[in-house]
């Protein structure tokens, strides 16, 4: 089965990231496909490149990176992202900010990609804040 997931909660505040990562790993291990994880609302903060995981705590960024290596597309909503400072090189240049902040495994996409993903998926599963 082909899944599209959505993460709406920020890391370290909500557990939506942990839940989505756990679901994705379990689904993949059972032969399903996770086409895309869409980060919306505060969930876009999962894509922040400069996060440092404290010792003994989950390194969510590393977990997302492992999913990306297995072909999961990590799609950050550009509208939710840039207003929270999640910028790729292109947006950094466009808005003349001092640094780009999007982690390498992630990409900025339009909200339309969420809708297109839902339209193509067998199941859409949301992990709220």
């Amino acid at each position, binding site marked *: 089965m082909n899944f599209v997931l959505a993460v709406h909660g920020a890391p370290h505040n909500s557990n939506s990231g942990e839940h989505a990562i756990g679901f994705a790993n379990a689904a993949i291990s059972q032969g399903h496909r996770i086409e895309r994880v869409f980060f919306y609302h505060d969930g876009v903060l999962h894509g922040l490149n400069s996060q440092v995981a404290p010792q003994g705590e989950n390194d969510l960024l590393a977990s997302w990176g492992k999913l990306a290596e297995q072909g999961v597309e990590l799609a950050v909503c550009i509208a*939710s992202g840039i207003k929270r400072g999640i910028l790729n090189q292109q947006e950094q240049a466009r808005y003349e900010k001092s640094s780009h902040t999007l982690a390498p495994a992630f990409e900025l996409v339009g909200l339309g990609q969420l809708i297109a993903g*839902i339209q193509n998926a067998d199941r859409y599963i949301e992990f709220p804040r």
Partner: protein
Amino acid sequence: MKRLLFIISAAPYSNKRGTAQLDAAMVAAAFDAEVSLMFSGDGIYSLLPNQSAHAIDQRAFSKVLEALSDYEVNQLYVCSESLASRGIVLSDLMPVQPLDLAAQRTLIATQDAVIGAAL
């Protein structure tokens, strides 16, 4: 064409969740999805007319709702139990169709995806 139901259950102006839901609903409509909107819980306050959102520098929820018909989003529903428990009657609200819990189950069962159910 996919049928997508967006549920708005947070009060307007206390946070941005409802606004984010409306943004997504409009994009979905632009992508040719068949969009329905369901207001429940404190989300029903979004449907009160004559909101003075400018007083707190916000975009008026009621104005955005009025714009939905430009996107051919005309299926607006409200939870009748949420109305009753808050002492709000249908005539207080912008035009919207009330659904009891059984009718909501039927509506949800006919959708391809439900978005924001727990927001």
